[in-house]
């Protein structure tokens, strides 16, 4: 055995690592091979009696990567390197963590948390998505722990939702047993709460998975004399749903209280000020109004003051501060007017202003909580797709177990109408599977032995047995969920502007409120002769200026600005996921707008990727006789062309008996004996060497070759009987996809390693403008680069395996595949269905989403830039009677603005991504 390190050029990602490792492992005698793209090397162990270094290098070179020359690729004893490698890894421990955050009320909260996390030592990058209520943190676990990051969030006044699990408990006899288990669990570090139900025989535990794994909790229960097992599901989706429902419930209760009290307060306060005779006298009583308004401030209004207090304690400001300042000022001045004699100008109270402000803002929060849930519907739907249980075969018997307990290689039984629990390969049975929930393809796909199954899809017709290949977080569904979640947390560059504005918004609004107060107190009140022009009789300049200043605070809405981008990305990527289009974040959306060229990989992307019988020309006998002879000759061959001919013959229902004396002639063809006759299939050369005249058939052969087909001559007893041709044919829909892109104004190119003639033929069929042929896999990226140097913005569409470098080089890499990890890693857009038509759909969705972001930003900025000046009283000199926004109306407008942004985004869900 020998260990070597081979230096390799051209590896760019984990996919390259995999390809190179597999290429090395494909060499007989290689026992271990591990490539590292960061280091540009492959470590391999091989049996020197079975192979040598050169063979391994050739295998790697054949996979499309460049092996560096002898001087650079010297065999090194790996053992010597081991201690160094260990040391390198010792100090670094980059980890990623995500936290579900509770208590955020606007985009400023997200910005505050993000700022605090990024300041923490050891944090490389932290990103907080307000709409998704999620923080993603990349951190060095050697410097900072996950619990410390949690502390940062909590210290800012927000919460971190913990994981929750339900354990099935056995052996309980009475309620005290439940209490014992609860006590034992609660003692443990990492367990936030534990509730054990004796009648249900279950324990619901809220815990920190970082501090205590589920198995340890089971051990604790067992240690106090009971049994425990993981029950059914981990409530990821349910947890979010419950948190959302709790928020809706709280805001609904707040709204009911606010509305119930704000109506009599308004009637009383306004009735007295405006002299409404229909209002009962007792409602106008200052003390009653004070009591009612105090209840509004203490219950529905408390959240704003609490939020302000928590924020200020940590030096951060948010939306709550604006509301608290506005409502607090109105309330305090009213209380002062109620209990103190401040003079004639201070007889008015503003309890109605405070109550109505809170009522409208709570209404806004309630509507926001309702609509926000709908924006993340897609991800919840995806989470809800997962099967809860699986039926596996243990010792020949079927046993139902929680889906989390299924292991790789378990044999799973699925009956018609049941969900396929995990990914796997069929080993028995025939069925049709509805994969629409994952791929968006509505027609059920037939599955038989050897076919791959995607977990969470629906088995429709037959019972099947399959072997689990991917479970837990490795399943296609889990990867899709992770990808969509990641995408929804990533920010689009356009959001930077919104973030800058939202980050300084609260400060700017307070400055404006202060300036407005100064202006109206010292200049405006006298200059515009407010007591006369506004028609309020005795009017205090302070109260007048205060009300305008409060209106400025209340009407300003940073929420709309902060929500505009993330909410559109969330709905857009969610809609994509529902249609089998996975978009990796906001940056892709922007890049997709600028594209002008789409480059398709040929094999496997535009074409089916495997040859198919296309033509049979009979010279002697019938077409079927020629095809039958060709199939008989190729039956023993493992060559893809031979397989295509055999498949073609079977498709025509021809009987293909076995032949004798199979002989493959390298570079020529095949020769067999059948019923005592010599049957040959192969090139012109094979026939000429066997003394046959091919001149009369040259024209037909050339025509087929011109069409990009591989033509083979068939002979029987040295007499040519006909021609068969095979070709890698276009996929159904490829031409339509290219046409669609042309209609959208794109220039469409095709890139392939095939010769010019074959490439041109396929391009002609598909209607492609530009052909890049005879391009080696490692040259694909440089061809894309050439197009980019010409000033084009290029999208590369490939199957994500040998196109990885080109996918990465392009402005937008689009991988077509079944959502494999390789495709997901290399590309920025992943089309789960194997359908090239989705390229146009993906670009259309990107445009739609970015369009929605722009619309949202426009409305948010428009609202604030129009609303704030009006609130400041800019219309006062130009209108008769002078116009000022009532603070309550400002609160209603503010609440409406963020709801409008959300509703406008939700409209996107109704748009169909037509072909």
């Amino acid at each position, binding site marked *: 055995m020998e260990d070597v390190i081979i230096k390799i050029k051209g590896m760019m990602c984990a996919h390259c690592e995999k390809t190179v490792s597999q290429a090395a492992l494909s060499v007989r005698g290689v026992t271990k091979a591990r490539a590292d793209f960061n280091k540009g090397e492959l470590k391999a162990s091989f049996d020197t009696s079975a192979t040598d270094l050169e063979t391994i290098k050739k295998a790697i070179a054949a996979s499309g990567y460049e092996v560096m020359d002898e001087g650079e690729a010297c065999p090194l004893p790996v053992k010597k390197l081991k201690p160094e490698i260990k040391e390198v890894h010792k100090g670094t421990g980059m980890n990623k963590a995500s936290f579900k955050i509770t208590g955020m009320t606007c985009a400023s909260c997200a910005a505050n948390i993000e700022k605090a996390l990024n300041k923490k030592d050891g944090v490389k990058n932290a990103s907080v998505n307000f709409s998704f209520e999620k923080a993603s943190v990349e951190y060095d676990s050697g410097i900072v722990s996950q619990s410390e990051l949690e502390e940062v969030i909590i210290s800012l006044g927000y919460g971190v939702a913990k994981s929750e699990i339900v354990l099935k408990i056995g052996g309980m006899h009475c309620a005290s047993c439940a209490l014992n288990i609860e006590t034992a669990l609660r003692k443990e570090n990492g367990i936030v709460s534990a509730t054990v139900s004796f009648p249900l025989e279950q324990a619901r535990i809220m815990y920190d998975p970082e501090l205590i794994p589920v198995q340890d909790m089971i051990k604790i229960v067992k240690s106090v004399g009971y049994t425990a097992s993981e029950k059914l599901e981990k409530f990821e989706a349910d947890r979010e749903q419950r948190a959302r429902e709790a928020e809706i419930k709280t805001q609904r209760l707040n709204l009911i209280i606010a509305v119930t009290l704000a109506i009599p307060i308004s009637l009383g306060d306004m009735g007295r000020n405006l002299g409404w005779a229909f209002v009962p006298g007792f409602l106008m009583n200052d003390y009653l109004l004070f009591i009612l308004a105090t209840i509004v401030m203490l219950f529905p209004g408390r959240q704003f003051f609490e939020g302000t207090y928590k924020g200020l304690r940590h*030096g951060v400001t948010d939306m709550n501060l604006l509301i608290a300042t506005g409502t607090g000022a109105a309330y305090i001045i009213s209380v002062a007017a109620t209990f103190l004699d401040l003079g004639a100008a201070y007889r008015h109270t503003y309890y109605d202003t405070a109550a109505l402000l809170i009522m409208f803002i709570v209404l806004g929060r309630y509507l926001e909580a309702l609509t926000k849930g709908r924006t993340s519907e897609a991800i919840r739907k995806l989470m809800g797709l997962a099967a809860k249980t699986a039926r596996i075969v243990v010792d020949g018997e079927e046993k139902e177990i929680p889906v989390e307990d299924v292991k790789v290689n378990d044999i799973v039984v699925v009956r018609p109408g049941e969900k396929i629990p995990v990914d796997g390969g069929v080993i028995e049975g025939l069925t049709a599977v509805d994969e629409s929930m994952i791929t968006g393809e509505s027609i059920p796909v037939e599955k038989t032995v050897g076919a791959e199954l995607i977990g969470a899809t629906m088995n429709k017709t037959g019972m099947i047995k399959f072997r689990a290949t991917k479970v837990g977080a490795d399943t296609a569904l889990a990867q899709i969920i992770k990808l969509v979640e990641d995408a929804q947390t990533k920010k689009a560059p356009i959001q930077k502007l919104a973030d800058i504005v939202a980050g300084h918004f609260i400060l700017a609004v*307070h400055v404006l409120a202060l300036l407005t107060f100064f202006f109206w107190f010292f200049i405006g009140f006298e200059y515009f002769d407010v007591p006369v022009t506004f028609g309020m009789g005795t009017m205090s300049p302070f109260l007048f200026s*205060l009300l305008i200043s409060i209106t400025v605070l209340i009407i300003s809405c940073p929420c709309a600005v902060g929500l505009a981008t993330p909410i559109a990305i969330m709905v857009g990527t969610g809609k994509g996921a529902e249609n089998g289009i996975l978009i990796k974040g906001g940056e892709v959306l922007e890049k997709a707008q600028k594209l002008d060229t789409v480059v398709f990989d040929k094999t496997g992307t535009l074409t089916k990727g495997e040859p198919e019988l296309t033509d049979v020309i009979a010279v002697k006998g019938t077409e079927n006789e020629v095809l039958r002879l060709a199939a008989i000759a190729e039956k023993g061959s493992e060559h893809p062309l031979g397989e295509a001919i055999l498949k073609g013959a079977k498709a025509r229902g021809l009987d293909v008996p076995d032949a004798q004396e199979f002989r493959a002639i390298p570079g020529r063809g095949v020769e067999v004996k059948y019923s005592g006759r010599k049957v040959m299939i192969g090139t012109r050369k094979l026939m000429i060497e066997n003394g046959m005249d091919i001149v009369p058939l040259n024209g037909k052969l050339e025509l087929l070759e011109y069409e990009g087909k591989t033509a083979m001559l068939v002979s029987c007893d040295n007499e040519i009987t006909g021609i068969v041709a095979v070709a890698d044919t276009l996929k159904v829909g490829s031409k339509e996809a290219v046409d669609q892109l042309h209609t959208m104004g794109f220039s469409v190119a095709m890139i392939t390693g095939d010769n010019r003639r074959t490439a041109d033929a396929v391009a002609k069929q598909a209607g492609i403008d530009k052909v890049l042929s005879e391009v080696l896999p490692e040259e694909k990226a440089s061809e894309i680069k050439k197009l980019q140097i010409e000033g084009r913005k290029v999208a590369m569409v490939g199957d994500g395996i040998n196109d990885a470098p080109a996918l990465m080089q392009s402005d937008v890499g689009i991988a077509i595949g079944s959502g494999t990890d390789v495709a997901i890693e290399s590309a920025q857009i992943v089309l789960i269905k194997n359908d090239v038509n989705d390229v146009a759909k993906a670009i259309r969705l990107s445009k739609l989403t970015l369009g929605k972001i722009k619309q949202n930003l426009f409305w948010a900025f428009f609202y604030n830039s129009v609303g704030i000046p009006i609130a400041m009283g800019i219309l006062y000199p130009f209108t008769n009677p002078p116009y000022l926004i009532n603070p309550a109306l400002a609160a209603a407008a503010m609440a409406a603005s963020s709801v409008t942004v959300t509703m406008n985004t939700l409209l996107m869900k109704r748009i169909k991504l037509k072909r």
Partner: protein
Amino acid sequence: MERKPLYSVLASLATSICIVILFYVLALQKLGSNPEAYIPVDMYAGMVYVFVLSMIVSASIWPGIIEKIMKR
């Protein structure tokens, strides 16, 4: 860096007091020139409101400035 919060509070208080004094001086003039419209309650209530708003503004600005100064 440990004293950053203290310096921030002191700077914010100083700024707010300056603004309130400015308001007070201007308000005194108003009280003198237009005693029918302006009364002392307006001035005192205004001073409280101005103090609250200017504290919010200056408490948002000063910590960043002090951090920059202390880093130098």
